[in-house]
Each structure stands twice: as C-alpha cells, then as structure tokens.
C-alpha cells in the first residue's frame, strides 16, 4: 500500500510513528512524507522554549535519520501544490509526482490574521514556526516596546516570548473583557492578570485594534476607542485558520468557516483521503490542541493496520503551564444558573483561584477552573467524566490537603468506575489497567506500560497506574513484596542481611548465590551500594567496577556533553588560602569551570575523562580528598562560623562539623546524606534541613534527624537534646547504620522516616533507648566503616591498572572525546547545549 502524507507537523509525525510501531505488515507499506518547512517535525507546543535556550534540534520530535532508519521517504521544503484525485497522485513544488493508495492530509493550521490596515508592516509577526521565531529574534534587538494581539493561550505564550526576547515593556491586548476567554472566567482572569503583571507584562482588555501605524515599519497601534499605543514590535495571535487550501482546490468538502470535513473515521469526502490534526473539521469542530490530533492519528493508523477504530470527539479539558502559572479548565468551566452552584476559592495573595461547578443537589461535579495550583486536576477531571459521588462537603475537593492528600487520592482511585479513562494519550481505561494486573499478571508499572501502553505518552498518569496496581494486587490478597527487580526476588533489606551473613564481596557472587539472569541498571548499583555499606572496600576492585552506577564507576558525576565534575572534600566548608590557590591553579591548568556549590565547597566542571586522574593527582598532592559528590554517600557537613568568631556562638560548630565530616566521609548508604552544625539557635548552617543536623544549646548539642531539601522539603525532627560530643556521635552512628540497614534503595532519610511505622517515636526508641537491643551492633558496624575508610581517588592515582579505565578510546587512549563541545560564558566555559 502506498501512503502519502502531506504535512510533517506534530500530528503528521505522530502518524508516521504509529504506523511504524503498530503495523504488523510494516514492510508492505511504502510511506512518503511531504513537508513544507525546512526541518523535520518539531514540538510546536514547546515552541516558546526556543527563546529560553532550546535550539531547533532540542525541539525536534525525531531527527531526519529516524525517517530513513524507518524506511520513510521525507521530502522537506517541498510543499504539495496539487492533488489529482482521479489519477491518485500528488504533485509537489519541486516537481515530484507521487502516486498514492491512501492520502493523509496533516497540513495543520496557520495563524489567523485579522484584516487590520497595516498588518503588512515590518515588525508585525505571527507565532507558529521556528522561522517566525528566528525572524523575531533579529528584529527584537531593536525593539523596546512590544505588543501582542490576543489574550488567549497562544497570545500569552507569545507574550512570554517577548519577555524572553528581552523586550522590557510588553502589552497584551485582548478584544474580549477577559484573558483566555474560552477557558477562564472573570475572577480567574483577574488572578491571571495580576500574575502576568507581576512578571512585568501589561494587560488591556476590551480593546479593539483599528490600525497599525508607521511607514515601512510599525511605530504604534490605534484602537477603536481612539486611544494609541507606541509599539516597535507586534505579534498577532488572534486564533488559527485551518490549512484547507489544497483540499478545497481538489474539490473535497470543507466547512463554511474552513477546515476539511471528516467523518468518525477521519475520512474526507473522498474515501481514499483522510485528514488529521488541526486541518480536520470533525462534527463542526476544529481542535486546536495536540492531544486530539494524536488521537486522530491513532484512529487512521489503526484502520490502515487492519483494526477498527473511530474518533468520537475529544474532551477539551486542558492543563497548561503558562508563563510559569498553572492554568487548567475541565468539563464545563462556566456553567451557571439556578440548577447549579459554584464553589470558589480565591487567594489573591498567593495567586490561587479554584472554581468548581456542581449540581444544585451537590451530587455531581460538572466542571471547573484551576489557576495557580492545578494539582487536583487529574482527580477532578475523573470525577466529572465518571460522575463520581462527591464528598458531603464538595468544597473538600478544592480545599485539598486538610489531612493526607495521598489518602484522598487513593480513595479516589478505588472509587473510579472501570470505564474511567486513566491514560488519555493512549486511551486506556481503569478496567484495562486492572485487567493487566489480574489477567496478564503485570505486577510492576513497567509491565503494565508494556502490556497496555498506558503511561507511555506524557507520563502524567503513572502515579494513578501505580495506585491502581497496588490497590488491585491488595484486593487479590497478594502480599506486595518490595522486590528489587526481575533479577532478585528479595527486598533491599533481605539482600543486605544475606550479603552480610554469606560474606559476599562481589556483584557476580551475589548474583550467582542470590539472584538469576544477568543483572541490570537497578540491581547492580543497589547491590554495589549494599556491599560498600557493609564492607567499605574500594568500589572499583573485585570486578565491581562495572556493577557501579556510571558516576561511581568513574568516581565523578557525568555532565551534559560527557565531561565530568571534580569536587574535592572541604570539611565543614573551612579552607586555607593555600588550598584555594591550588584549586584555582588546577582549574586554570585543565580549563575547568569553577563554582561555589550550595554545600560550602567548590565544584570544578568540564573535565575530560582522560584528565581526571591527573587532576586528582595534583589535588591529592596538595592534601585534598575525594568529596564523594558522585556517590550515594556523605556529601557535606555544612557549618556556621560558630563561637570562634560569631558573637552569638555557643560552641565551636566548625570544629565539630569537621570532626563529623571526617568520621562519616566515604560511608555509602541507600541514598546520599548531608549534615550541618549550627553554633546557636539562629541556625545559620540550616542543620534542620539535613539528614542529620546538630545545633548548639547552652548545655551541649541538639540532634535533629531526617530533614530534606530537594523537591519535597521537610524539616528535620528533634531526636535528642543537650548531648555531649561523644553521645551525639554514638547516636549518629546508630541512626545512620539503622538507616543503611533498613531503607529501600534511593530513599533519603526523610522518605524513610515517613514510611516508618511509629515514626520519630519509634526511631527514638531504637536509637536512644535501644529498644531493639541493636545499639552495640550498629555502633560496631559503623566503626568498621570508619576504620576501613580510604580515599578512593588516592587509590586510583597510585594504581596504573585502575587508571587505564579513564580513557575515552580503548584503541587511542591518549585522545580525548572529540564530540565534547563548550561555549564561553562570563569569562569561563559551559557545556554546549544538548540536542
């Protein structure tokens, strides 16, 4: 079958991808694609990121080679100019004539430009393609005053672009009385407006443009209310116009206001021609969003590959991040009248607005709007779609976290009916997900993904899939064992105990004795970490080097572009001028980017793999050691200056921090861990944000545990008070060893405590009161690690065998990776942006 696709935009590409991945008889299809733009399909939805640093290549959905690798002929910069339906051929601008059995129109849409006098002037732009943006980029250098016509979704994207282009003063002009008139109500628009204004944008609603002023190029705008605005650059974003010109010329049926008419099979009035994406008019509707376009692509691809599928409209509920603000609308956002009531929550200080519309009897949710915080979007959408029963006080739906938000969501998942759509990218229902668990025996999210394709698109539904899986397994009476991966039917804690009892010291032995298969990127680092936590042997020996996570294997963190970072330990953040000079001269010699980290030390970035041993040799000679920035190990112990200089300092927090850092350096754990020591209650070392934090009191030290920064910050909790140095260290020994023994892989102390039954009281009993009788054992285990410490970089520097692995090419060891590229920035270098 000869398939010709006109248009290589987002939907045209998705269609190719679906054909390639879905068709059992792929080899019988010949696929030819014509695209008008100069580059293969790219992510138009994230077009604005072009200005915030993403290049054209970053936005590409697939490189040109993808098409050739998959045997698809791609003709770029070559628009189709006519369709000959009687001979079933298309004719292109460059003179190609190609025959088709099936023709797909995926021509998308163009920006609608209202007939305002002066729109042809220089400095007036539309916002649709990368070329549009490139032209803007040039022009923007001269512009100081910007304007955007259109306060809808695209208009606000364009306004963000103006900010990114560095235009200091930009006005958004909207004809309607509010912003985003199709998605948001007046109150929501007000909140959105104040958020935009906080970003430096001005917003004028109820404004109708009468003319664009200027001779050759734009100098201002004139409105119907007789007001003027000086403007050097304008983006028009007043809506879209489906590109139906080819279809129209070929005599296919088009809508009165544009768009190629299609039936539920996406067939046009010619049964051999299909239209998908923004050019298609289905049931009187043009969908200006990408998800419905993808669904259309799926419908046609499925039919061509021999199955039956049709399109029945698409829910227009959307959740977006506009200029950094969450905006979502679902169901019927505006419904009003005596049969309905709305519940509204507004916090103008935080910029949050939530509205839900429910039936007057309070039994059903019909739709709503969320601005500033759209975390509840998924669950609310499901509630509308599935007509779920509402809680007795419907306002609970938006007032959220009054109690555990997780509990709320779980309850939600189990109450969904089987038809509830869980993954909208791949149209998978709750029933299908649960069936994958019960009938096909899928017991991991990966297995469900593979079996149903759910969660393989945007990934937004994965938490729900996991909840459903766990819930279904529990309801089958299955004990959900927390096994490591397909190679070990053991939890981390079980593995830990077995490795210790059996005295196993290499990954291969562990796999032989306790696992099966060949291992993978999940169990290898987990087992390596356990062995390091028990024996603390040099991690690159006994064949364990290739079982380490890549960063551990090279004792450095891999960075964008393939170079590495070098982080010497600077205990407590204290450093002598001489050592500072060494860092400076090493950085200069090897051309490294230097930065003070958030952990009170210095990171040197951009080191070639080949240079690492030499760099470390020089650092070690000057008395530095590895900082283990690459390991799941102790990072830094932050200190404040304390009683040595500070007028409030109670004890010498720097000395204690150094002592702590030197004690636990190199200790490997399920995840990295950090500490801090503050000299008084003012807490300048932020100790309460650390895995364990120490704070001086009049009588000694208070010990806090299980704090975390990161994406879910959590304050540390008080474990014990007024401790002397020795007791404090003993408690830390016990605490850390208990964590190392019992936590799941890659779980920070805060997450570990959150899951612990009995919480901090239980932990205190174990650590302080020795309720499990483990204290002596834990202390001894830690002492073993402390005694076995040695700097692993020092060992590499002294061992030529180990050094061999630090070359890029095995057959040209002295050559560096030629693909590494840097760019200059503020007198230093940074990694070139990746593709």
């Amino acid at each position: 079958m000869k398939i010709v696709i006109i248009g290589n935009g987002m939907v045209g590409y998705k269609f190719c991808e679906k054909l390639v991945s879905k068709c059992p008889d792929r080899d019988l299809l010949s696929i030819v694609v014509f695209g008008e733009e100069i580059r293969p399909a790219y992510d138009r939805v994230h077009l604005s990121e072009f200005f915030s640093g993403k290049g054209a290549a970053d936005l590409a959905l697939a490189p040109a080679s993808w098409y050739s690798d998959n045997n698809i002929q791609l003709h770029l910069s070559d628009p189709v100019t006519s369709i000959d339906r009687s001979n079933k051929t298309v004719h292109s601008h460059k003179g190609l004539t190609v025959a088709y059995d099936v023709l797909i129109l995926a021509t998308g849409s163009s920006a609608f430009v209202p007939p305002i006098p002066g729109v042809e002037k220089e400095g007036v732009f539309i916002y649709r393609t990368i070329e549009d943006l490139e032209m803007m980029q040039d022009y923007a250098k001269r512009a100081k005053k910007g304007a955007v016509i259109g306060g809808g979704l695209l208009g606000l994207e364009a306004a963000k672009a103006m900010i990114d282009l560095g235009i200091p003063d930009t006005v958004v002009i909207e004809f309607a009385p509010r912003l985003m008139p199709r998605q948001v109500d007046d109150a929501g628009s007000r909140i959105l407006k104040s958020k935009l204004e906080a970003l430096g944008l001005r917003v004028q609603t109820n404004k109708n443009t009468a003319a664009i002023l200027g001779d050759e190029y734009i100098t201002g705008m004139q409105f119907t209310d007789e007001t003027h605005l000086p403007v050097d650059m304008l983006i028009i974003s007043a809506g879209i116009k489906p590109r139906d010109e080819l279809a129209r010329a070929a005599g296919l049926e088009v809508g009165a206001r544009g768009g190629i008419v299609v039936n539920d099979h996406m067939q046009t009035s010619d049964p051999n021609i299909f239209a998908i994406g923004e050019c298609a008019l289905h049931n009187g509707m043009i969908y200006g969003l990408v998800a419905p376009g993808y669904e259309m692509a799926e419908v046609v691809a499925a039919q061509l590959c021999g199955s039956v599928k049709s399109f029945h409209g698409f829910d227009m509920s959307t959740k977006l991040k506009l200029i950094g603000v969450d905006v979502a609308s679902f169901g019927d956002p505006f419904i009003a009248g005596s049969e309905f009531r709305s519940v509204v929550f507004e916090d103008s200080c935080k910029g949050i607005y939530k509205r839900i519309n429910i039936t007057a009897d309070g039994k059903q949710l019909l739709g709503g709007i969320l601005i500033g915080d759209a975390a509840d979007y998924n669950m609310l959408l499901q509630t509308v779609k599935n007509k779920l029963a509402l809680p007795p006080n419907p306002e609970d739906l938006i007032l959220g976290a009054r109690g555990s938000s997780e509990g709320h969501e779980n309850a939600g998942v189990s109450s969904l009916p089987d038809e509830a759509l869980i993954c909208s990218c791949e149209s998978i229902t709750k029933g299908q997900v649960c069936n994958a668990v019960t009938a096909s025996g899928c017991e991991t999210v990966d297995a469900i993904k593979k079996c149903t394709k759910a969660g393989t698109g945007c990934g937004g539904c994965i938490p729900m899939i996991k909840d459903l899986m766990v819930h279904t397994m529990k309801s089958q009476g299955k004990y959900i064992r927390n096994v490591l991966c397909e190679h070990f039917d053991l939890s981390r804690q079980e593995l830990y105990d077995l490795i210790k009892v059996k005295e196993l010291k290499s990954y291969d032995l562990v796999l032989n004795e306790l696992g099966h298969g060949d291992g993978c990127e999940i169990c290898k680092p987990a087992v390596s970490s356990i062995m390091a936590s028990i024996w603390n042997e040099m991690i690159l020996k006994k064949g364990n080097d290739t079982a380490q996570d890549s960063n551990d294997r090279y004792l450095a963190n891999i960075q964008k572009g393939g170079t590495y970072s070098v982080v010497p330990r600077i205990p407590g953040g204290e450093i002598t001028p001489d050592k500072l000079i060494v860092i400076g001269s090493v950085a200069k010699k090897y051309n490294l980017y230097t930065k003070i980290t958030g952990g009170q030390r210095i990171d040197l970035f951009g080191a070639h793999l080949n240079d690492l041993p030499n760099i470390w040799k020089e650092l070690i000679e000057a008395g530095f050691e590895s900082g283990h920035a690459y390991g799941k190990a102790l990072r830094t112990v932050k200190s404040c200056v304390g009683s040595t200089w500070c007028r409030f300092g109670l004890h010498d927090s720097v000395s204690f921090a150094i002592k702590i850092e030197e004690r636990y350096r190199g200790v490997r754990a399920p995840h990295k861990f950090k500490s801090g020591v503050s000299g008084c209650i003012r807490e300048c070392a932020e100790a309460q944000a650390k895995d364990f934090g120490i704070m001086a009191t009049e009588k000694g030290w208070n010990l806090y545990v299980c704090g975390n920064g990161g994406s879910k910050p959590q304050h540390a909790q008080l474990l014990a008070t007024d401790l002397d140095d020795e007791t404090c260290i003993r408690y830390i020994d016990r605490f850390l060893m208990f964590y190392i023994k019992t936590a799941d892989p890659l779980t920070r102390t805060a997450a570990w405590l959150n899951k612990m039954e009995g919480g901090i009281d239980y932990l205190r009993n174990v650590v302080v009161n020795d309720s499990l009788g483990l204290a002596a054992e834990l202390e001894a285990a830690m002492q073993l690690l402390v005694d076995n410490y040695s700097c692993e970089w020092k060992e590499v520097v002294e061992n030529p065998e180990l050094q061999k692995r630090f070359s890029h090419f095995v057959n040209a060891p002295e050559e560096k990776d030629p693909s590494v590229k840097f760019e200059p920035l503020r007198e230093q270098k940074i990694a070139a942006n990746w593709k």
Partner: protein
Amino acid sequence: MSTITENITWFAACRSADVPQNGGVCVKYNNDQIALFNFTRRGEWYASQNMCPHRMQMALSRGMIGSQDGEPKVACPFHKRTFSLITGACLNGDECAIKTYPVKVEDGLVYIGIPEADGPLPA
C-alpha cells in the same frame, strides 16, 4: 539490524583483555565511535553505536549492561534509556533504535564487523 547480509569488513578494535568484564569501552573507528561490550556473564560480545539517541550523547560505552527478560541490554548513564544489544531497539519509551554491529574474537583480538554500506575502512 537485518542489513548485515552481504559484505562485512572486520575491523580489529583492541585486545579482548582491554575490555573490562561485564562492561564496555569506546572504540574509535574513523571519525565514528563504537561501543564494545564484553558480556562475560553470557560469554558474549556486543557492539553498538556509542551515541545515545536521546540527547545525542557519546555515552553508551560507559553504561551498565544487563538483561531484561533474557534480552541483553545497555542503559545510558545520562537518563537510563535502555537498548537491546541484539536488535538495538529502545526497551523503554519511544527513543529510536541504535545501530548494532557483529563482533568476533580471534587470537585474543576483538573484531567489529562493519557492513560495506557504512563507508570505507581506514587506509
């Protein structure tokens, strides 16, 4: 994948002892980079392009190897995309497939098979 039917030129990459057990190295071939893996546990050798198609990083040789349902695979160190070492197919997500090459070991030397179409050998 299936194109290695006709003419293969065998390129001597390195000594087998140069490649760590159950790990990979990067081989320079003209201006190209090839990842070569010594899968000791399976007694097998594999080779693939060194570039990870996700972010076009020259990194696969530094990745961890392992298996999934018996299929040998490599995980990219950057974002853990995994690829079959036999077919080159991406085993998670929609990344495009990587090129794989045949490998043979003779007299302690490792040879990578380059299909004719992949361009001339170094002089």
